[in-house]
């Protein structure tokens, strides 16, 4: 059995790469270890209910519409009509830093005036910066590894305003600690504050279905429950894979979304020893607690209504995020309330859901003995809900069901080393590896989020499978 292109992983990067290659006549097989597709952005059934993982919101979806935005470009490349996403815009979201709070929606004017109100002395400098960021051309990538914190501090001074800009962008993209790469910051700033956030109607499943259906429509194949155990390499060139059941599949190109350490490990210990080192240790991973409630969040009585679509919080004076020393860091995280996207009529017949994500230690969860695992999961999710109660209102009396996933769960279902959700700190922007025709796609190639993952798969398929060596001159 021979394919032009094998794709490891049916997440958004793998599906997008597979669609592109198949669209132009390549024989494509996408291999997924799990029995469901989606990778980091997937869904599962527990207690008779379906839950989404990953996706809190789709960024890049606001006022500007699809034209010229990364989301628009992604959909165009895959020929998926924008309207089929049925996006429900966020109502309002909040950034909480200690005692300070800023609210924003999909209206950039409202965002800039909210910042100006909270930081009157910095209003002019911020307005100038916002205009520059909004107009920045994302195709013009500058020098790598420029610290966003450093550049923002030069522009705005060293104060909490810098933290307000860094926190949401870092939470949605960063594999570094308390900082991110400047280009990545600009991309995320536009994605969140200029273009805005939305939730596809019905959550992750219909969105994934669009991608999977498109793959099949253009002639690609998808095989689930097919874990790759080895990437076959001959004379430094990838020539296929071996599956868990012993089957060998030959191919001219192998595109891997498994992440750098896992991909090298699949190629064999010699590659792994030579090319993976301590720099590739995953730093960012999460624990998420999902509560099903008997009352919509915004109607729960308490000091502040839980009326936000998304909350980015740091329960500290300044934002100085680091890898948690403990199992979880109860001071930094994200609250997501799907029903606060769109209007209440969009959610008729749906049980209210509250999701709280805390940053977690990559290794400690993996090392926990089974006996302590369940109990620690419970304790961490209790802490997440206690914090929610302190910041807003207490959801606990209204809880009818709870499920929690940890870095260990993420590793089990995605194969990403250490439960990495944004890849490792090192990025391979051109996708090439020391092995010819083995190409990296997804978070370790350099882009994150659903839109970033999709664009990563597209760009790498265009370049390495379809032979589009460079972008077209104007």
């Amino acid at each position, binding site marked *: 059995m021979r394919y032009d292109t094998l794709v490891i992983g049916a997440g958004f990067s793998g599906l997008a790469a597979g669609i592109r290659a198949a669209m*132009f006549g390549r024989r494509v097989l996408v291999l997924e270890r799990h029995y469901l597709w989606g990778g980091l952005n997937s869904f599962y059934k527990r207690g008779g209910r379906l839950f989404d993982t990953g996706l809190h919101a789709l960024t890049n979806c606001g006022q500007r519409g699809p*034209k010229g935005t990364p989301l628009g470009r992604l959909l165009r*490349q895959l020929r998926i009509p924008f309207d089929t996403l049925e996006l429900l815009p966020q109502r309002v979201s909040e950034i909480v830093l200690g005692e300070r709070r800023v609210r924003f929606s999909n209206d950039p004017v409202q965002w800039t005036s909210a910042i100006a109100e909270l930081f009157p002395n910095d209003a002019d400098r911020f307005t100038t910066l916002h205009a520059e960021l909004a107009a920045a051309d994302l195709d013009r990538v500058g020098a790598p590894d420029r610290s966003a914190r450093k550049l923002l501090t030069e522009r705005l001074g060293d104060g909490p305003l810098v933290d307000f800009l860094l926190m949401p962008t870092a939470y949605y993209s960063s594999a570094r600690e308390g900082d991110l790469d400047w280009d990545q910051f600009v991309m995320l700033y536009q994605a969140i504050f200029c273009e805005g956030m939305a939730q596809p109607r019905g959550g992750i499943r219909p969105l994934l279905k669009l991608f999977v259906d498109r793959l099949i429509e253009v002639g690609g194949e998808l095989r689930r429950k097919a874990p790759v155990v080895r990437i076959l390499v001959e004379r430094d060139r990838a020539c296929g894979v071996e599956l868990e059941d012993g089957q060998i599949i030959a191919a001219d190109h192998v595109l891997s979304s498994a992440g750098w350490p896992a991909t090298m490990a699949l190629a064999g210990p010699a590659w792994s020893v030579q090319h993976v080192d301590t720099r590739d240790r995953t730093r960012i991973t999460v624990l998420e607690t999902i509560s099903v409630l008997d009352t919509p969040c915004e109607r729960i009585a308490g000091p502040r209504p839980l009326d936000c679509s998304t909350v980015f919080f740091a329960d500290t004076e300044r934002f100085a995020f680091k890898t948690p020393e403990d199992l979880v860091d109860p001071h930094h995280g994200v609250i997501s309330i799907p029903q606060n996207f769109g209007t209440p009529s969009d959610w008729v017949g749906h049980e209210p859901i509250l999701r709280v994500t805390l940053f977690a230690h990559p290794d400690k969860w993996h090392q926990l003995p089974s006996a302590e695992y369940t109990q620690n999961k419970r304790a961490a999710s209790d802490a997440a809900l206690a914090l929610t109660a302190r910041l807003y209102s207490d959801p606990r009396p209204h809880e009818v069901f709870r499920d929690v996933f940890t870095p260990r769960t993420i590793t089990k279902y995605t194969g990403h080393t250490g439960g990495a959700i944004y890849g490792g700190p090192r990025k391979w922007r051109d996708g090439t590896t020391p092995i010819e025709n083995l190409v990296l796609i997804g978070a370790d190639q350099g882009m994150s989020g659903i839109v970033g993952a999709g664009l990563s798969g*597209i760009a790498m398929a265009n370049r390495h499978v379809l032979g589009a060596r460079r*972008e*077209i001159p104007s």
Partner: protein
Amino acid sequence: MTRDEIVIAIKDIIQQIAPDEDLSSLDKGVRLRDQIELDSMDFLDIVMELRKLYGVQVPEADYKELATLEGCANYLESHLADKELHCASNA
């Protein structure tokens, strides 16, 4: 294909790539990207569709010839003279 058919073929490909664009009033002599939202990735798709549908290989050095519909007709005339027009949407 005649020159007019080449223009139809190109417009049909663009409509596939950018279904939300109105192509009815395109000026043949004006750069496509000045009239509709067409970025470099979309442009690449026009070239790849030409290869898929008509077997025409446009070398990178010649991409600039395809900037306008008029340019497309000039450049592709000899390449597509013996090819039949068929629509990307049916391919």
